[in-house]
């Protein structure tokens, strides 16, 4: 076969790869900026006078402040400035992690998030790992096999995928903590306290991941290279673990970046159910008290984590799929 003529010179592969990584990084920064801007726009739609609301949030009651009092507060926080000036100040403070001061506690939002983010990351990360373990074990043992059990497991995966995590959380809490007293009811008591909330988050995600992996698994099982491996003398289990699983995991890995967002959403509810510390519970509390800086701060920060997680998935992808490295 004659190769088509090459009419342009190719850059060395390492330089192309570095350029690709840089481009991806720049894209992530741009998305983060857009996220922050979008959040700013939405919160600026808030009706009413800022200072009045802020005073209400801080005192917890409806107070009738005088015009002068309000003006002083508005001047102090720059609410009297045009929106564009407020926006520039907000964006300029972002790289320092400065999201302003909570209306309720008057503490910097950055410090409040820093205190609460560790348990949330621990919870979501362990839920992600647990979801993968469940999905892989179930898929490898049952996918592509004829019979009722396999079909039943497939049905269970669909059912768990639609189950709301808050409901699963409450049920787990009642059964395992209240009735059976196997786990603490609430509060962060280290590892035992982590089991139920992580399971509540992991079960729906494992159903969702499992469906995706399972479909791909069944498809790959029928690929000629799997038959070829069998023809070499490999057993069914060997083929599943050493050939099929890696292929089937690829779409799951792509989804895992997305799953970070879903896990954060779930964490907000689960932290409330289990009375666990974390930014999710903090956000829910901030929402009901309309603590705008805290709400925007938490949302922008978690979007940042989402962007970072997806960046990592993208950069790590060639390790799992060597075809991307070869290009």
């Amino acid at each position: 076969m004659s190769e088509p003529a090459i009419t342009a010179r190719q850059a060395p592969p390492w330089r192309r790869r570095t350029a690709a990584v840089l481009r991806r990084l720049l894209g992530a920064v741009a998305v983060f900026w857009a996220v922050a801007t979008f959040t700013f726009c939405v919160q600026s739609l808030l009706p009413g006078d800022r200072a009045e609301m802020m005073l209400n949030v801080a005192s917890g009651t409806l107070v009738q402040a005088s015009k002068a009092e309000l003006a002083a507060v508005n001047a102090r926080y720059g609410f009297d400035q045009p929106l564009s000036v407020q926006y520039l100040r907000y964006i300029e403070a972002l790289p320092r992690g400065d999201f302003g001061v909570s209306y309720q506690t008057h503490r910097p939002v950055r410090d409040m998030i820093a205190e609460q983010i560790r348990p949330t990351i621990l919870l979501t990360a362990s839920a992600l790992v647990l979801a993968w373990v469940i999905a892989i074990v179930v898929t490898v043992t049952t996918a592509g096999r004829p019979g009722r059990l396999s079909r039943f497991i497939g049905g269970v995966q669909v059912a768990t995928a639609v189950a709301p995590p808050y409901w699963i959380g409450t049920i787990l809490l009642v059964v395992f903590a209240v009735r059976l007293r196997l786990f603490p009811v609430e509060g962060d008591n280290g590892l035992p306290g982590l089991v139920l909330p992580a399971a509540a988050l992991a079960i729906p995600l494992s159903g969702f991941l499992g469906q995706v992996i399972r479909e791909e698994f069944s498809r790959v099982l029928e690929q000629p290279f799997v038959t070829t491996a069998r023809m070499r003398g490999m057993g069914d289990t060997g083929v599943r673990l050493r050939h099929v699983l890696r292929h089937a995991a690829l779409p799951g890995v792509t989804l895992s970046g997305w799953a970070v967002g879903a896990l954060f959403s779930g964490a907000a509810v689960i932290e409330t159910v289990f009375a666990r510390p974390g930014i999710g519970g903090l956000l829910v509390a901030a929402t009901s008290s309309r603590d705008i800086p805290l709400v925007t701060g938490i949302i922008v920060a978690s979007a940042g984590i989402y962007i970072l997680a997806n960046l990592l998935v993208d950069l790590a992808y060639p390790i799992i799929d060597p075809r991307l490295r070869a290009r």
Partner: protein
Amino acid sequence: MSSTDQALVFRAVERRRSAVAAFVRTLPPGVAVAALVIVLFVAAAAAPGHLQTHNPFRTDLYATLQPPSLAHLFGTDQSGRDLFSRVVEGTRQSLTIGIGATGLSLSIALLLGVTAGLAGGAVDAAISRFLEVLFAFPNLFLALLFVTVFAATPATLVIAVGIGTAPGYARMIRGQFLSVKRAGYVEAARTLGHSYGRVVRQHIFPNAMRPLVVMITLGLGQSIVWASGLAFLGLGVAPPSPEWGALLDAGRHYVTRAWWLEVMPGLAIIAFALSATVVSRHLQDRLEGRVHAG
């Protein structure tokens, strides 16, 4: 109308009826059950009175926190109200919020997805970037942002959930358009000398829109789960209304004493979402020709 005409009409009706029967017969049992569940929920939303066993708002202080029994199918709450009747009563509001959110979500998704998919180029790139930005917000967090700014009303709930779930559908629709645009039959239509407008009308649009039914059913289930999640956090519709999420929120405080207050409304949500998923998957299989229709 002559008698032969009537006979013809009658025969036509009969044929249609037998076609429906034949269609139902091709449904796998699981899908048939799921379809029936959805029909039941729609009935509960349309005419709750016919399904309720009690007045959902009448308190009975002699029958508080009763476990499920024949008299009270789902048990009673802390005020002695019949939970089954309350779940039936809440169906309308929950479904309305779900339908509203799905409608909004798909409208946004169609606008963005179709524009990006048809226009391509710079427009597509801009919309894709915008979707990427929306994706970066965890679904529920975006909803909470809206609730913070606009206060919790059913309308806010619809907007919050609608906007939160839109980017996923927009991306699906865009991908659908891009893949249909590359299809062999689109190129074949071009070589027949048809104008681009005709090709879009005849081939691209109808084929790219095929999964829309699937998206609607899937979206309904999902948005109800999300909306009740917000209500569960006490950020939804005000407590006296028996919306499913609100029932869950109310039940949370009695969960150690009365599990049914939490389990039953949750089962209603799962039953609806699961049925919607099962039906939509079946529709998808049919559309993709994996199941032979008829």
